[in-house]
């Protein structure tokens, strides 16, 4: 080998290493010639090796669907069983490169039953090639594919109008298809659409410009793919650094590793840590290849901070002037990916921006028909169904709407029994959290009342000498509300009242057995208690409830279920120090989680019927009995 050629290969490699990467989704069916198009792009850019080609020729004769021609589709259909059925079932990834770019193609099947596969392929793509058969024009499938591409936020679409050879390369046919498509795509959110007439089978306008369509002045497919500008599609505005891994090799170094999700991370800049909201400055951006002054998406780096702040996986570094939403309750579009239909009572695992927590689907706002885009209401999703939902998570998520930021707007739901990824979501940011329905206030359920009884209210009241009512005591753990409630129960009982006492341990040992102390489970737990109270109150019985019930919204919802006129709230007022002294064995435990006053806010009630003093607890039962007397609850007036 001569020195000269060695120099050339060096130059070539130095140049070649600088190529960027374009990820493409191809949508269309085998009938549209999709695999033929991909096969030709790969073949004509010489990425099909000779032995693969020989195997292909052999296979084409045996199981091919392309007559005497080489069936490029066989090259792409990987798995044995699928090859025999003549369809690509999964997502297959294909690689080729030219002098200008490296390409990764996610090749997915086109039929409606493979919607989930297409959604998968679309999730990582910068650009989508949607194939149209020129003899058929814009059909239902085209609309479905375009809708999915728009749903997954792909900003560039190439409409490949294939089989132009079968319509005599007629410009009128092409123009009509373009116009039909433009009319349709206007209602979706796809900023960049390009139209290319081609024949994949004959090779027109694929790699070489076609001589048969002189009326077409645009680029051929490969030339377009090599030059389309996509790097500015990333969000460089809002810095989001979701901590993936905490790196502590020794006492001197404490780094936070992550892939930059969006924005530019700059050395020296002040950052805020979520959820603690503490701030510090970026001390260094460390990599194996040396320190950097800035890092941008999708780089994987490690940062250190000026101050020692407790940060763990799932926390997020942001700039204080551009914060994401921090919520437990939000809306999203959801695609159901599992063979097993959704069970609305499941408490899913949710994975979002390196955060793992649990989530529940509160409500399905509507389902979208992927073919017509019409909306309808459903109770649960089946495979491949798409719709808009309201979710509640245990821990708050730090998110942006998917449209603005794919990395912080996407999540997956995992079934806790099978561990399967059952659904994927894209967060919407249209309504604020308080305006979203949560399962506890579902109107329909409140409408369902018990059937007509033969005993009327007055008869109960007369028999028991009381009005059915709920005496609800809220307060921190250790404030003494249980002791008070038991004493109150005893005194009322001795006076002749008919009372039932409900407290955390009695309900959690049975009725709420499967629930934990997370906010969403706590809400469900209290919803059940409220329903029990409603039933008992309806039958004239007084319920005494002793529950921490820290969230004022949840207390409001409990009152709604019980009936606001018969719900009476009492606040056992105690400060945290008092409670800690009272229940040291509880508060001294390590790793306390979901404890009101510690890591969950306790909303002090503003509208309690009575404020009870924890330090003078002996007098409280008498105060409540007096309240019952004054309000004619017991004895009946």
């Amino acid at each position, binding site marked *: 080998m001569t020195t000269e050629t060695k120099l050339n290969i*060096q130059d070539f490699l130095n140049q070649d290493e600088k190529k*960027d990467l374009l990820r493409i989704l191809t949508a269309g069916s085998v009938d549209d010639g999709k695999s033929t198009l991909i096969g030709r792009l790969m073949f004509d850019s010489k990425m099909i090796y000779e032995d693969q080609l020989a195997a292909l020729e052999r296979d084409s004769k045996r199981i091919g669907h392309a007559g005497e021609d080489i069936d490029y589709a066989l090259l792409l259909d990987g798995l044995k069983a699928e090859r025999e059925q003549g369809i690509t079932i999964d997502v297959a990834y294909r690689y080729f490169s030219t002098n200008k770019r490296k390409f990764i193609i996610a090749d997915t099947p086109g039929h409606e039953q493979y919607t989930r596969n297409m959604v998968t392929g679309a999730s990582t793509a910068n650009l989508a090639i949607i194939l149209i058969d020129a003899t058929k024009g814009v059909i239902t499938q085209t609309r479905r594919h375009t809708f999915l591409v728009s749903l997954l936020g792909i900003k560039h679409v190439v409409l490949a109008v294939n089989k132009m050879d079968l319509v005599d390369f007629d410009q009128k046919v092409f123009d009509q298809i373009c116009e039909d498509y433009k009319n349709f795509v206007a209602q979706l959110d796809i900023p960049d659409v390009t139209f290319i007439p081609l024949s994949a089978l004959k090779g027109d306008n694929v790699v070489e410009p076609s001589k048969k369509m002189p009326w077409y002045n645009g680029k051929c497919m490969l030339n377009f793919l090599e030059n389309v500008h996509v*790097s500015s599609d990333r969000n460089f505005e809002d810095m989001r650094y979701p901590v993936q891994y905490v790196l*502590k*090799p020794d006492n001197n170094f404490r780094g936070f590793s992550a*892939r930059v999700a969006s924005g530019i991370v700059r050395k020296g800049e002040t950052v805020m840590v979520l959820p603690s909201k503490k701030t510090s400055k970026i001390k260094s951006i460390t990599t194996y290849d040396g320190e950097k002054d800035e890092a941008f*998406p*999708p780089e994987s780096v490690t940062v250190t901070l000026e101050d020692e702040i407790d940060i763990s996986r799932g926390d997020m570094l942001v700039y204080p002037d551009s914060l994401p939403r921090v919520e437990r309750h939000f809306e999203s579009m959801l695609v159901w990916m599992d063979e097993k239909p959704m069970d609305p009572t499941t408490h899913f695992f949710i994975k979002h921006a*390196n955060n793992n927590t649990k989530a529940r689907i509160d409500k399905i706002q509507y389902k979208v028909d992927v073919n017509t885009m019409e909306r309808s209401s459903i109770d649960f999703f089946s495979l491949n169904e798409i719709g808009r939902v309201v979710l509640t998570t245990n821990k708050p998520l730090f998110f942006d709407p998917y449209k603005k930021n794919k990395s912080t707007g996407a999540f997956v739901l995992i079934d806790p029994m099978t561990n*399967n990824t059952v659904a994927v979501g894209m967060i919407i940011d249209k309504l604020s959290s308080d305006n979203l329905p949560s399962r506890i206030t579902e109107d329909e359920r409140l409408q369902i009342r018990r059937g007509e009884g033969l005993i009327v209210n007055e008869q109960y009241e007369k028999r028991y000498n009381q009005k059915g009512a709920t005496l609800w005591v809220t307060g921190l753990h250790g404030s003494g509300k249980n002791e008070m409630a038991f004493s109150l129960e005893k005194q009322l009982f001795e006076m002749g009242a008919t009372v039932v006492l409900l407290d955390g341990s009695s309900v959690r040992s049975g009725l709420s057995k499967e629930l934990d102390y997370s906010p969403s489970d706590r809400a469900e737990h209290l919803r059940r208690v409220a329903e029990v109270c409603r039933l008992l109150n309806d039958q004239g019985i007084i319920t005494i409830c002793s529950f921490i019930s820290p969230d004022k919204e949840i207390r409001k919802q409990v009152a709604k279920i019980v009936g606001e006129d018969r719900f009476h709230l009492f606040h056992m007022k105690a400060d945290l120090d008092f409670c800690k002294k009272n229940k040291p064995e509880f508060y001294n435990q390590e790793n306390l989680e979901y404890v009101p006053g510690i890591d969950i806010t306790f909303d002090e009630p503003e509208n309690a019927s009575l404020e009870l003093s924890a330090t003078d607890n002996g007098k409280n039962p008498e105060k409540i009995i007096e309240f019952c007397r004054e309000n004619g609850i017991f004895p009946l007036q």
Partner: protein
Amino acid sequence: MKKYNLTHLRELEAEAIHIIREVAAEFENPVMLYSIGKDSAVMVRLAEKAFYPGKVPFPLMHIDSKWKFKEMIEFRDNYAKENGWDLIVHYNKQGYEAGVGPFTHGSKVHTDTMKTKALLEGLSKYKFDAAFGGARRDEEKSRAKERIFSFRDKFHQWDPKNQRPELWDIYNARVHKGESIRVFPISNWTELDVWQYIRLENIPIVPLYYAKERPVVNIDGNLIMADDDRMPKELAEKAEMKKIRFRTLGCYPLTGAVESNAETIEEIVEEMMTVTVSERTTRVIDFDQEGSMEQKKREGYF
């Protein structure tokens, strides 16, 4: 804006580092399977980068079929020592003592016993819940559809019909006890990407990749190197010196060499650009039967 654009190699690198860190964060007991080949060399470097300046928080495991090239074993031990890696070497003791090898038992029995079975033994012995592999989707058709986080049941089996959806860069790492995940951080790399990265990063590789005069025997169209005296005499006698190199490395009796003059990375890449035969054809095991790689993968082989 032009400034904030990564080259394809740096983008692939960032993706792989993210995957490797994700495994370290989500699994209790991961391991990186180390085959000593060029893909492993790249994967190991990516792991070193992922945890820099710290030490990689998981060990390497090499499944030794006892029929690897001598130079591979030498390279493995030196690399692990010089770079401070915790290296586990596992082999199928039973098979070894029974004298299983490709010359006496054929490639299928040898691969089943000394590779697939040995791998499953090793994974079970140390109760690894995640194992990194250096497989790439461009290598072979059945791999093109495999996930980056690829679920394996209690018997280490892969079910191509029942793969978990994998979207964006969100990976589902949940497994029940006994189940595991195989993780392929360089799934999206091509053979050319691997070579370019080795050049760019100056990553050390086994010298067998570079062309040199070596003793080889033509066995059924494959150039097999006479690496030790276990090669049957009647074959070894036919050995002749040829300037050859290897595109992939494995068990020496099952790995065909190519005649080549490529002595540097640049020359290897140049050769690749003009080559018309894909790399797996130098692996004898792929030709056993139609769909043989898919079959092996279902059974637990990478």
